[in-house]
């Protein structure tokens, strides 16, 4: 793509634009209404931590290194690292799908956990926030981590079946 580099074109057009509001994307009240409807939604920070922990703990439970999981799931190692470090703002749908397969989680729940889909399930939201709060960075699964993981996975699976 090559942009117009004519000085006069830019000046004339910018003059017409006159720093007005040219926003497109739905009225504010719609976003506000959405925000209200999304009351049950998982807070972004908690979601990212919970997703990171879910993937990391499940991987360690299967006694796999990051490289091994990436290979098994046939996903990009750097994406996986990003996810486990809670840095993943927008993972690729394929990566989420493959991880769900290998880690044996319900697809649609993984979509919610990864931020690619929304939920109104309050139960899931609360459980996610609790799980995020409980996770800590250690190398072996402590009994507390094991318990936390098991409890959370139970909620994930149950909420999927319940629809």
């Amino acid at each position, binding site marked *: 793509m090559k942009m117009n580099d004519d000085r006069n074109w830019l000046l004339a057009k910018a003059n017409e634009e006159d720093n007005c509001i040219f926003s497109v994307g739905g009225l504010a009240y719609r976003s506000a209404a959405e925000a209200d409807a999304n009351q049950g939604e998982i807070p*972004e920070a908690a979601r990212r931590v919970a997703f990171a922990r879910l993937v990391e703990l499940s991987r360690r439970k299967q006694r796999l290194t990051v490289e091994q999981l990436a290979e098994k799931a046939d996903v990009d190692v750097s994406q996986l690292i990003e996810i486990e470090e809670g840095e993943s703002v927008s993972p690729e749908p394929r990566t989420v799908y493959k991880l769900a397969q290998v880690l044996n989680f319900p697809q649609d729940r993984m979509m919610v956990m990864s931020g690619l889909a929304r939920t109104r399930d309050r139960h899931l939201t609360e459980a996610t926030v609790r799980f995020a709060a409980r996770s800590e960075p250690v190398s072996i699964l402590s009994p507390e981590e094991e318990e936390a993981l098991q409890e959370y996975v139970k909620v994930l699976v149950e909420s999927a079946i319940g629809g």
Partner: protein
Amino acid sequence: MKRIPTSLVLKATNEPVAASLVEGVTGEMLEQAELAWAALRIEGAKRLQAAGREAPQHWRWDWRRKSAKINFMAYRCFGIECADEMQGLMLVNLTNYVSRMDGQRGKPLVYVDYIETAPWNVKDLMPEPPRYGGVGVRLIEAAIRCSVDEGFGGRLGLHALPQAESFYEKTCEMTRGEIDRQYENLFWFELTTANAKKFLGDKP
């Protein structure tokens, strides 16, 4: 993520300055831009309301909510960077919308899903005068070129917020369509291939 050289107008001198069109804005960039814009957007809205004027109709937006969409091939996110800051953002959809105009009905077009300029570029929003001009024009130019590259002939479609209607009708020379009841009763606007070419002003 690609950076394409372009320019904006520095309002203080009314001269063009170097800028970059970012094609393939990342989630991290969206987050940074939103953090930089959010507070000012709200401040500006409050200020206008206190002065008895209408606040920008998009003051409760959040670009971070769009980050899920950018990994789908049907969407493309563009930004304009200048002085190491995001000056404008645009999310377009290449697949879900088609022309509604007689003679072209059903033909694919680039739909502008979201577009916004940084609060400090909007006239009368901040106490200081606007910093850069031409952000809207550059983003629309990018959308048109994207449409041409995709084989859609430069056709664009969008639902304009009421405050933005005049920009699209006059500056972009888009054709006003019907009120869309499926989309908040906003007007549908469409750019024809001919007017797209006119807008781009490319020398043959």
